[in-house]
């Protein structure tokens, strides 16, 4: 079952929720729609569910017009952010709902319904809560009921709208893993909306990063992380250091460091550069270009130590990551001076108006082999 979304536009009175969005969803894949609030990801999901319609554009399911069908006919399973459980029905009745409202001819017998519901209850580990009401359940339990309810109708596609947003961190992690296992077992095409990039990168086969109604990039988590296509993706995913590289005569440089190359052949005078904390190399020998930095502060976060480095020539503070166990080995202490340089970076040139030219992205790697 393939889904092709083409040139979807949706405007609400004040703003453009979807701006020329096109996306293909492969059968059986787990796709995450990732972005900040207002990026359009929920709108996109609701359009897939039939709870909203685009102004222009098309959605084809196996080549047929999906938008011509109503939400009722689409055979999708949806899990809402706030569960939307039927508050006056028990857990059992909630899960059975989709089967009970089927038209006479298509309705399974009572026995079949019961058996299927019990199987699902066991799957979501709520068999002893069958007769409880939603108000008597915890958030995590409610979400599992919502999932079971969506799965009961054996949908072609599963849609989840920030399903773990309202839950405690611990519960979220557990449910995340569990959802991934479920997906691997069922192989159901799943579209998952979230603003939590950690969640998206952990769960999804592919991630579509959205911002302001546009899809900034679609790709596997590795590609998204290591080869971000736009400045937004760089900044939204993971931690990143940002600085400006300027043309200094014939070469591009930022403070004391130079990438020693120029794929744009002199076309641009300025570019924005992104370096991840783990890409900063410490204690660079004087033979290679680097920044003179002062180590301001060390933040210990479990196995990783975050180093706050002030770069005088940029008048900027950068963050570098090292393994905590390396702190003493490298003799790191606050106040010390160090030469620091990137091992790799992603650069986007800027035109005269200061707008980045995303398709001229340059992924730079340091040439000489680099010791750890």
């Amino acid at each position, binding site marked *: 079952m393939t889904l092709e979304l083409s040139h979807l536009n949706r405007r609400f009175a004040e703003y453009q929720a979807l701006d020329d969005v096109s996306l293909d969803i492969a059968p059986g894949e787990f796709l995450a729609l990732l972005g900040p609030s207002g990026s359009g990801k929920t709108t996109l999901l609701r359009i897939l*569910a*039939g*709870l909203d319609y685009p102004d222009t554009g098309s959605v084809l399911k196996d080549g047929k017009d999906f938008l011509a069908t*109503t*939400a*009722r006919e*689409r*055979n*999708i*399973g*949806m899990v*809402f952010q*706030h569960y*939307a*459980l*039927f*508050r*006056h029905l028990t857990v059992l009745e909630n899960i059975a*709902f*989709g089967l009970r*409202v*089927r*038209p006479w001819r298509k309705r399974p017998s009572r026995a079949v319904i019961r058996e299927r519901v019990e199987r699902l209850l066991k799957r979501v580990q709520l068999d002893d809560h069958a007769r409880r009401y939603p108000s008597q359940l915890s958030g995590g339990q409610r979400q599992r009921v919502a999932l079971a*309810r*969506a799965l009961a*109708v054996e949908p072609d596609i599963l849609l989840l709208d920030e399903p773990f947003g309202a839950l405690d961190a611990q519960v979220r992690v557990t449910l995340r893993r569990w959802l991934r296992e479920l997906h691997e077992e069922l192989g159901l095409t799943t579209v998952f909306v979230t603003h939590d990039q950690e969640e998206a990168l952990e769960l999804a086969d592919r991630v579509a990063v959205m911002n302001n109604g546009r899809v900034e990039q679609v790709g596997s988590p590795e590609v998204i992380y290591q080869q971000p296509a736009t400045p937004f993706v760089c900044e939204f995913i993971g931690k990143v250091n940002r600085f400006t590289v300027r043309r200094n005569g014939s070469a591009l440089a930022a403070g004391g460091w130079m990438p020693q190359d120029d794929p744009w052949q002199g076309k641009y005078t300025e570019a924005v550069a992104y370096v991840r904390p783990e890409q900063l190399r410490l204690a660079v020998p004087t033979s290679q270009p680097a920044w003179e930095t002062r180590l301001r502060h060390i933040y210990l976060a479990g196995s990783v130590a975050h180093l706050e480095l002030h770069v005088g020539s940029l008048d900027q503070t950068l963050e570098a990551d090292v393994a905590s166990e390396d702190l003493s080995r490298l003799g790191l202490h606050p106040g010390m001076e160090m030469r620091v340089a990137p091992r790799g970076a992603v650069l986007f040139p800027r035109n005269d108006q200061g707008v980045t030219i995303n398709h001229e992205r340059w992924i730079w790697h340091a040439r000489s082999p680099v010791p750890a």
Partner: protein
Amino acid sequence: MSRHVRSRTASWPRRIGHVALLLFALAFLLAFLVAPLATVFAEAFREGLAPYLAAIRQPEARSAIGLTLLVAAIAVPLNVVFGVAAAWAMTRFEFRGKTLLGALIDLPFSVSPVISGLVYVLLFGSHGWFGPWLDAHDVKVIYAVPGLVLATIFITLPFVARELIPLMEAQGSEEEEAARVLGASGWQMFFRVTLPNIRWALLYGVLLCNARAMGEFGAVSVVSGHIRGLTTTMPLEVEMRYNEYDYVGAFAVASLLALLALLTLAVKTLLEWRYGDEIAAHAPGGH
């Protein structure tokens, strides 16, 4: 029409000033609210039980009771259907003119009861818009039961809608959307999801609507013609007996209405107490 509001910081009055204030307030309530209620029963039973029962058993009283029940039995269900339809349209869809629709629904609240009756006289009375046509076809609306029903519908129109709209607004449409996605048809969604979620507010609205329908006086008085035994509801019967100086008779019928009022209050309080959060908070209304 309020939920039972319990402040977290309510305390026993300790200082003498507070106690005095409290006693003054309670005295005021007693004199102002309880006294009239007590008067009704005191006057009804002034001459003892037998005259009271006789007053109620009179044929005029019986037909007044019957007519009151009939009018309510027609007006209330019609307004329930309207209230549900209006609430569904207002809270589940976006369209222009919502404020206008809301204002129209509230209109009968802000209109004097006499005017509520007047407008129907002007429409269906002999000199009204449809007067000649009705006379030609020998259909009586004003000074007949249909007029009573219409005026009552007008007066009690907002009650159910006003209870449902804030509640359905607050509940949101997620459950109904979920039902649709799961494959429910429109009516399945309505009866399995929407109705159960609003049932207590609906009952509450019906209660208030009914109390008003049975007790309405001004509007009904205008359209009724005061034909004893035919177009006289209980409140009108009360008035007529009072004007004829039949005080025991008037208060006897009034006592029935007062009992209805007390019953309404009791059920209302019960509903608020047990299902308060399923009946949204809102400002009081009612004429």
